[in-house]
């Protein structure tokens, strides 16, 4: 195989793996920028993956054709938002420990999604196979060498993810809404004094994170696995948290980190094509992304800059 197509394919696979992580990490940013820790991204992705698999399947049955996967995405957004609402009510209204209520989401998601799959599909452990999204070639642009194959022949969700990175960057840093959201995460009492409704902003942040993580989960069922089972989401949510921290709670940074994780996932499939890789135990190749992350963190990033009020419930009476 010639090098150009190989590079193009590598780039394409990288984007397939990173898309779900980008969505979930963006979700995490909304929640954590508003001051609410979201360890529940994993569970929210599970909710999304499940809803997309079920919604997409029934839409396919009802004759939505090529639009069926989009119905799946919408279901994922709704279910993700509902799931995150549990987190919001517990941690914002009832001032529960945010880490704990995020863990609750992970538990409830793992239990309830599989429970419902078994209920809906007569005891089967996974949903029926879906058609899912197919790759869309952007006219003209997809003829460019390397990036034509690599970027402009991707799944529609990948394009959506890239657009969202830019939109969310703009929203967070260039609009009054974004300023308020960040203020609530940095110094809630100051924001409150200026008339910002702290709890409302936090609810919005958490629910947006549920929606985005839901789309993230949906991408996995609709582009990679075509079905939802107990192992469809296995750690991607935590990797997305890592990408968010790695990207310093910035959409563009998180995008970079997510692509980095996607790349190291992809490269392990390609390294095995080469003869010299036979001399390296496969386990060490599998380890690459995780070791690399730690090395990069040690050497480059240094102290991470979390939002100041992250993890603290807002109590107006407290100084």
């Amino acid at each position, binding site marked *: 195989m010639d090098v150009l197509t190989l590079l193009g394919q590598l780039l394409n696979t990288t984007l397939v793996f990173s898309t779900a992580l980008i969505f979930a990490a963006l979700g995490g940013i909304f929640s954590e920028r508003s001051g609410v820790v979201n*360890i529940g991204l994993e569970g929210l992705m599970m909710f999304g993956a499940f809803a997309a698999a079920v919604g997409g399947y029934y839409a396919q049955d009802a004759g939505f054709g090529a639009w069926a996967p989009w119905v799946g995405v919408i279901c994922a957004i709704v279910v993700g938002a509902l799931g995150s609402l*549990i987190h919001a*009510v*517990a*941690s914002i*209204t*009832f*001032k*529960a*420990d945010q*880490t*704990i*209520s995020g*863990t*609750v*989401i*992970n*538990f*409830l998601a*793992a*239990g*309830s999604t*599989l*429970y419902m799959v*078994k*209920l809906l599909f007569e*005891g089967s452990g996974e949903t029926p196979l879906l058609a899912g999204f197919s790759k869309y070639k952007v006219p003209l642009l997809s003829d460019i060498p390397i990036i034509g194959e690599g970027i402009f022949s991707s799944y529609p969700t990948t394009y959506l993810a890239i657009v969202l990175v830019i939109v969310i960057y703009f929203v967070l840093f260039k609009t009054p809404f974004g300023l308020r959201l960040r203020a609530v995460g940095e110094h809630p009492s100051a924001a409150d004094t200026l008339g910002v409704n702290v709890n409302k902003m936090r609810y919005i942040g958490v629910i947006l994170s549920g929606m985005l993580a839901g789309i993230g989960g949906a991408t996995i069922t609709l582009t990679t696995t075509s079905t939802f089972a107990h*192992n469809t989401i*296995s*750690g991607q949510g*935590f*990797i997305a*948290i*890592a990408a968010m*921290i*790695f990207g310093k709670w910035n959409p563009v940074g998180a995008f970079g980190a997510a692509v980095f994780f996607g790349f190291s996932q992809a490269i392990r499939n390609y390294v095995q094509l080469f003869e010299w890789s036979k001399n390296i*135990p496969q*386990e*060490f190749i*599998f*380890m690459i*992304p*995780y*070791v690399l*992350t*730690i090395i990069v*963190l*040690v050497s480059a*990033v*240094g*102290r*991470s800059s*979390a939002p100041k009020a992250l993890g603290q419930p807002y109590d107006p009476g407290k100084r």
Partner: protein
Amino acid sequence: MQRFKKIFATDVYIVPLVAILLGFLVGAIVMIVGGYNPIEAYSALFQRVFGSPYDFGEAIREMTPLMLTGLAVAFAFRSGLFNIGADGQVIIGMTAASVIGIKFAGLPMFIVVPLSVIAAGLFGGLYAGIAGYLKAKRGINEVITTIMLNWIALFLSNYIVRTFLLLPGQNRSEDIPASLSMTFLNSLFDNARLHWGTFIALGAATFFYIFLWKSKQGYEMRAVGLNPHAAEYAGMNVGRNVIKAMFISGVFAGLAGAGEVLGVFHYQSIFAASPGYGFDGIAVALLGLTHPLGVILAAILYGTLTYGSAGMSFGADVPPELIRIVIGSIIFFIAAQGIVRWVLKPFYFKRKKEKVL
């Protein structure tokens, strides 16, 4: 009697109990919505656990690693750290115990067994210590490093088992001669896989309590957990305490690994995916309100529920995943105590009136 009443009437006991009841209630509602009979299901669950000596012994076997991983996560919590990496530390502990248990099998057993248990604890601790060190010296969030270290541990131990300990043609290590099994209990519990790890876990809980609340070092650790800035101002070395706390947390998790390979399986498998010990540990630590006694009780509850869930699907045809909904709801109600207090409000008002009279 009056004193007894006073102890059990405090929030600390009532709120978790009500939370557990509410959790079961949520589970029952979910079952009714799904068209199952909750009474049948719950009685099948408890019947499974308490029905035969074998199952009761196996339920204790199920609780043992939960106690230790729960203690691991709880200990880190008390020092202000979130150890998501108990999973990796358990795996490293397993691997250390397997290596010593197989490679030093020539030595007398009363040396090999303690040696492999100690190795499991030590390596689990050192492995967690990496995350502690990076946090203390480089300020790298321990959540991200422990997540990465979980995956690294998985692949590293698979490599070690595959290259040095493999039983030819199988996806697991050769049998480990060193054993923690309590074989003298076999007749009593019908060959359930009981092992000394349970006592190691109880010992660890005792150590946890004495160290954290009765020693100077433990006092420092709690101070760092509550407010690192104040602790530093008071002259405590925050970094050292962070590393030490992660180390001890990892020792607990590593010991859980030793119990699993030396007491239960007697070999180590090559894992296709994360075995999930650490995530159960997080739930147990939270259920137990990060107190050692609470963690032990929580592990008993959690172990009963997960072990019994198999009986639930067998006896009442309810998907065993339901039990995760129950556990999740219990943790939810414990975390959001406001909801429980709100449920209890009518009773509270009554009590207050009595006091006035």
